[in-house]
Each structure stands twice: as structure tokens, then as C-alpha cells.
């Protein structure tokens, strides 16, 4: 029994403890509405974190995700400029931008042999440059209501949970898709094999470049989706994506993903994202000033890696 408990990823226990603490401290979280709003807030970061997990599992980093979130919000607002009839094609264009950005990242890593941290750092600077140039550094256009539907709208009068934010539905669908691809397909197994040992994977017949392209594309597309949700949540914003890539990496690491590849699950990563958000919520309820969130994020980031390393060493792995 105790042995089996030890095998459970501690992130789930931490998440449960945080929920208990929040529920004790805030009456707002005794109702389902509190949790639904919580999930709504966590949805973009959960989607981003799982996207990031693809790149982490492949053995890399995607630092360009946050800048792509910003570009999505700014680009959509400028392309749309309040015109509701254009929403659908703008969403498609933005997803297309995600595919292009992800492919470019992967090709720079694969063909030019540039370490992914530098390749995506360059992409991050380039994308924020594009966003700034396009917008002139300030919000310009406007997002119509139907674009904001995904990030803002709540389905009311749902039995049991009372409200159901559309963002939560998006999160469940997108994360389920990414879970399936990672854990229930040949592709996912190839990806993890590549992150574990790229040379062995190559010699076992895994097509590295294609595998990497898809990983980076998933990450970029997840950033676009997160951008659509965040744009929907609050409207145009020029620095909505700043630092999100680091939160995503933190979430994946809290979930036990191994940096430089080979180990990491979608479920635990989502739990990692929720832990991060729950931690922020708890600090908010306790009335700590916002900057303390950074301190806590920094400390749990380091602790998560230290604990993971300790667990691994102790299990003799």
C-alpha cells in the first residue's frame, strides 16, 4: 500500500492539499462557481504547459511560446479590428501562423544544429519584434465578441456546477487531444524515445526531423490557442504573453517532466499547471502582494527539480 502511494506522482497530492487549503480559507471556493472560475483562469496556462511538454519531452525548450501568445492576441485584434464576420478566418490564419512558427523552430534546430534554447530565444525576440512592429507597441485593433467567446463566455445554469466557462471546455478538448497524441499513438512513443536518446532513436528508424517538427508545431499551436483564450478573457493586450513560457516550463517541471527529454506525462503536467495556479490563488486569498507569486514560483521550480532528482536517485534509476 505504502509502496503504491510512493509511486503516485506527488504533484497530485500537492494539488489536493492546495484545494483543501483554499476551500478552508475562502467561502467562495465552497461553491462550484469558484472552481469553475479557477479552471477558466488556469486553462491557458494548462494548454501552454502541455504544448511545452511536447518540446521538453523531445529534449528541448520552447521559449517562443509566450511571444506567440502576444502575437496571436495582437495579430487577431489588428486583422479583425472589431469585425465579427472575420473571426473564423482570422482564427485559422493564427493557427497557420502557429504551424509556421513551430516548423521554423524545429527546422532551425534540426538543420542548423542550433540548440533549441537559442533557436526559440531568437524566435521569441523576432516574434515580439513582429508584434511590436505590427502594432506599433500599443493595442490597435479590437476583438469582437464572437472572438472573445472562447475565453470569456460562461454557459449558465448548468446542473451541479452552475456555470461552465467555454475556456474550460476548450481546455478539456485540447488537452485530451494532446494526451491522446502523446500517450496513445506511435508518434508519442517516438517523441519520448527521441528525447531519451536521439541517436538511438535515429538508429531505430525514428524520423527525427519530422518528430521534432510536430512537437514544436504542437507547442506553437497550443500557444495560439492559449492566445485566443487570453485575448478572449480580457481583450487586446500587448504584453499578455510575457513570461508565460516560463510558467509553462515551471508547470511541466512541477509535474515531473524531465528537462532534456524522455520523461513526462500530460496528466501530471496539467496537474502542475493547476498547482501553480492554485498556489497563486492561495497567495491571493491570504492577501500577499502579487510579487510574492514570483518568489513562490521560483522556489517551487527549484524544489521540484531537486525533489525529482532525489526521488530518481533513491529509486536507483
Amino acid at each position, binding site marked *: 500500500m505504502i509502496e503504491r502511494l510512493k509511486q503516485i506522482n506527488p504533484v497530485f497530492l500537492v494539488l489536493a492539499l492546495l484545494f483543501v487549503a483554499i476551500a478552508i480559507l475562502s467561502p467562495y471556493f465552497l461553491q462550484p462557481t469558484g472552481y469553475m472560475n479557477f479552471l477558466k483562469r488556469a486553462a491557458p496556462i494548462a494548454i501552454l504547459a502541455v504544448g511545452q511538454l511536447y518540446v521538453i519531452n523531445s529534449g528541448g525548450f520552447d521559449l517562443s511560446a509566450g511571444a506567440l501568445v502576444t502575437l496571436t492576441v495582437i495579430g487577431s485584434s489588428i486583422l479583425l479590428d472589431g469585425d465579427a464576420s472575420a473571426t473564423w478566418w482570422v482564427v485559422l490564419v493564427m493557427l497557420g501562423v502557429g504551424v509556421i512558427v513551430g516548423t521554423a523552430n524545429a527546422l532551425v534546430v534540426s538543420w542548423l544544429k542550433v540548440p533549441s534554447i537559442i533557436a526559440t530565444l531568437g524566435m521569441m525576440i523576432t516574434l515580439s519584434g513582429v508584434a511590436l512592429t505590427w502594432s506599433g507597441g500599443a493595442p490597435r485593433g479590437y476583438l469582437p465578441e464572437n472572438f472573445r467567446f472562447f475565453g470569456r463566455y460562461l454557459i449558465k445554469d448548468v446542473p451541479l456546477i452552475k456555470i461552465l466557462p467555454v475556456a474550460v471546455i476548450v481546455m478539456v478538448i485540447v488537452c485530451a487531444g494532446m494526451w491522446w*497524441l502523446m500517450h*496513445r*499513438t*506511435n*508518434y*508519442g*512513443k*517516438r517523441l*519520448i*524515445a527521441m528525447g*531519451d*536518446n536521439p*541517436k*538511438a*532513436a*535515429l*538508429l*531505430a*528508424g*525514428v*524520423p527525427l526531423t519530422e518528430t521534432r517538427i*510536430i512537437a514544436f508545431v504542437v507547442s506553437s499551436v497550443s500557444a495560439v490557442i492559449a492566445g485566443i483564450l487570453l485575448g478572449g478573457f480580457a481583450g487586446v493586450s500587448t504584453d499578455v504573453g510575457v513570461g508565460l513560457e516560463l510558467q509553462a516550463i515551471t508547470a511541466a517541471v512541477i509535474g515531473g517532466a*524531465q528537462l532534456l527529454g*524522455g*520523461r513526462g506525462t500530460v496528466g501530471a503536467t496539467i496537474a502542475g499547471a493547476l498547482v501553480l495556479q492554485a498556489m497563486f490563488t492561495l497567495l491571493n486569498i491570504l492577501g500577499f502582494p502579487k510579487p510574492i507569486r514570483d518568489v513562490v514560483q521560483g522556489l517551487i521550480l527549484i524544489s521540484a527539480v531537486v525533489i525529482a532528482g532525489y526521488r530518481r536517485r533513491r529509486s*536507483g*534509476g
Partner: protein
Amino acid sequence: MTGDAIFEMKGITKVFPGIKALDSVSFSARAGEVHALVGENGAGKSTLMKVLSGVYQAEEGEIFLRGRKVRFQHPLESLTQGVSVIYQEFSLLPDRTVAENIFLGREPTNRFGILDAARMRRETRNVLALFGDRHRFGPDTLVSDLDVAQQQMVEIAKALSLNAQVIVMDEPTAALNDAECDLLFQLVEDLRGQGRSIVYITHRMREIRRLADRVTVIKDGKVAAAFDDVPETGQIVEAMVGRDIGHFYPDPATSDEVGAPVLTVHGGGNARLFDIDLELCAGQITGFAGVQGAGRTALALALFGAEPFETGTVSVEGQPVSLTSPRKAAKAGIAMLPGDRKAEGLMLMQSVRDNGMISARAFSNPLGAPNNTSVATLDQMDKLFDAFDLRAANYEVEIQSLSGGNQQKAIVARWLSLAPKVLIFVEPTRGIDVNTKAVIYAQMRSLAQDGAAVMAISSDLPEVLGISDRVLVMSDGKIVAEFGYGASETEVMHAATEAHLGLETS
């Protein structure tokens, strides 16, 4: 015991997670002698020397240096007391000069803390002078501009500059050509003449005969035999292998087992290979012999598309194929089991099953179910594991917890799922214990009997001769000779070393 031993190790036991690497080993060396330390890969030779130098700390046992008990916690401590180890992978910094490497970590400084470059140069020149005029490089040469033998000289010079009385050399000839070997042997003899004590790790009988004064054989972490002189080769081999090697290898293929040519190469060449003409036949094991750098591994990599041919044509079962990537090679029916299992074969953090299934997954629909691919199902894989008698707590444990032999079985199973026509084994038994070796050999034979063309590359010449129906000898990127089953080590070696004499013998 030996009263004049410079150092003496008594009852050394060293345990790694799950493995007893050394079990109560005793070993010693006198001044002015070369003590050969012999054993198969993984027998524990290097571990023993790492205990001596303080890289590892033994759980049990004692070490005496000039009669005084010592316990080195760190290599620095052994270095300063005159024990130098020259490892197989050189511990040199390629971007730094010879002098900087020789004084690595103990650079002389003046009283302002500024490096005394002049002194480093001077002392380096003095040390190099011990080699006579054989070194042909100076203190300011960058190490990356040196060839392997010269790099080894730098390592030895490093030891000499520390005035080492005990010098351990771990398979020093592994990458040397004949002329370079000769030079090394002379250096070793010089060092012995200076009254130093040399521990010479090797598994090559020729070198033992040429250099050694005493021989100790280690097997499975224990001293299998200790000779106070240099005994007959057969005695050493028996102690190493632990049984008569006669029944070690399966019988060769009968003539009706050998089928039509499966793989044909005409005029294959690239930067490391020249004018390769080759036929591999179904049902036959073709072994490749040659010295290090002769082109055997390059040929395997070319056939598997990892370092493709740039000229010539290749066909599989009469169909021309283009082998420009491992994936294309695998699709053409060629499989390779890489030599360095850990670096090139295993996904260490994944389960045994995932390691076995990866090729099947790599060659089926990427969106398909991973346990039920169009190439193989998990059930079939499990059955292959069962058939190979793969020993694991269960097939879901991480493969890094398995022994080398069982890991190798998983990799073989991986490729069998693709039903390859050509199987290339590179160093198939490196780091595998003797009993599992026999299993692997039997497996190779049965793969051939099932109709595959099997290619075997090994730096262990007896192994090549023992398992192959046909032996091709390579030298300088070319195939230079062919022998049938039953060729002798001497004639194969002779062919392999017409230019470069004398390696790969036991």
C-alpha cells in the same frame, strides 16, 4: 606477499547499485616491473584502478602505498602521491596546449598569482625530452592538432611530470597503429628501466608476451588467476573465459543453409571507404576483421545509411536501393545493432517494451495505436522477449535496470519485429558476461538459419572467427582478404596488418 611492492591492494570490494563490481580483489605491483591486468570487458579492471586512484571509494579492503596505509578520497590525493592513471578516454582538453594539459589543475604561478607560462613550457620540454626525439611536438601545440599516439604521449608526460612511481595504462594500444604501438612499447620499457611500476591493462596476448613481467586475470569482479610469470596463452584465456572456448560457438552453416545473395554492393565508397564490393548471402554469417580504423564500423554505418556511401550501387534482393538514412535502410530490410548500446541503442528511461517496440512504432502509422502497430503487436513483442529468455522483473520496468545481455536481447527483438533481411551486429557482446555471449551467438546463428544475412563486426578476433561462416578482412577502408570458416588467427591477422602489424589477438 611481495615485500618490495610499491602498492598493494587487499580484499577490495566495490558495490554499485545492483552489482558487485569488485569482490575481495587483491592486487599489487613492484618497482621496475610491468604487471599486466587482464580480463574481459566489464570484468572489473577499470573499476579496480579507479579505486586505486581515488575516483571510487571501496566498501571494503585496504590499500598500502610503500607500506603505508592510504585511503584516497579524490584523484588529486593519489596523483600527489605518485599514482597516475591514463584512462582509455583521454582526459585531455582539445582546445588547450600540451603544456596547459600537462599542468592541468596545478599550473605554476608566480607570487602575484599569475601563471608562470615560461616555467610550464620549460618543464614540459624537460619531460618531453624523456621521450628522446620521438614526440615531434612542442609545449605550445594544441592537443587537437595531435594524433592519438601523440595524445597518449601527452598523458604519459603528464604522469611523468608528476614524477609518478605507479603508472596505470588502460588499454593503451586500442587506437594505435603498429608503428605507434612499437613506440609505446619502447616507452613502457623505458619507464620500467627507470624503476617505475607499470600496471598494463589489456586483453591482447601479444602485448602481454612482449611487455609483462606478471599477469593477473580478473573475471566477474574476482581474481580468476594470478601468475608470477607470463604463462601460456591458453592458461590466460581459460582464466578469462572460465571455460573451454571450443563449445562456445554454434556450428557453422551447412552449404544448403546458405542461400542467394541478399545484399550486393558494387564500388561503394565515401570518405572512409573505398571501392567496396560485397555480397551478403541469406543464411550466412559474414564476419569482418581488421584493426581499429580499418573501416569495419564505417561499412556498417554506410550500409545502415547513417554515414552513406557516396559512390557505387547497393541492391537488396536484386532491387537497387538508396541507403541515405537509417530509415531508408531499415525500409530496405537492413537492421543494425549498434556497438555502443548505451549511447546508440537504448532509451534508458523507457520500459523494456517501449525499447522493443520503438522500431515497429517508427515504421507504422504515426497516429496508430502504439501497442497494436501494423508492424508488430505488443503480444508478439512479449513473445519474442519470452523466446529470448529475456530476464526482467516485468517488461514494464525501465530498461536501465537490466543487465547488458538482457538489454541486448531487447534490441535484437526490436529489429526482429521488422523481419529484416540483413542484420548487422556491431560488437554484439561488448560488456556482456560469458554465458550470455553464448546465448547471443546461438541467436545470431538461428537468425541466419531463418534466412537472414548476418554481418558481424567485432574487435574480438576469436569471436569473429568463432561465429562467422566467412570472414572478410578490411584495411584502410578496403576489403583486402576473404577467408572461409576455420581460418586461423594468424593468417587473418596477417592479412589485416600487412601494412599495420599485430593487433586483435588473444
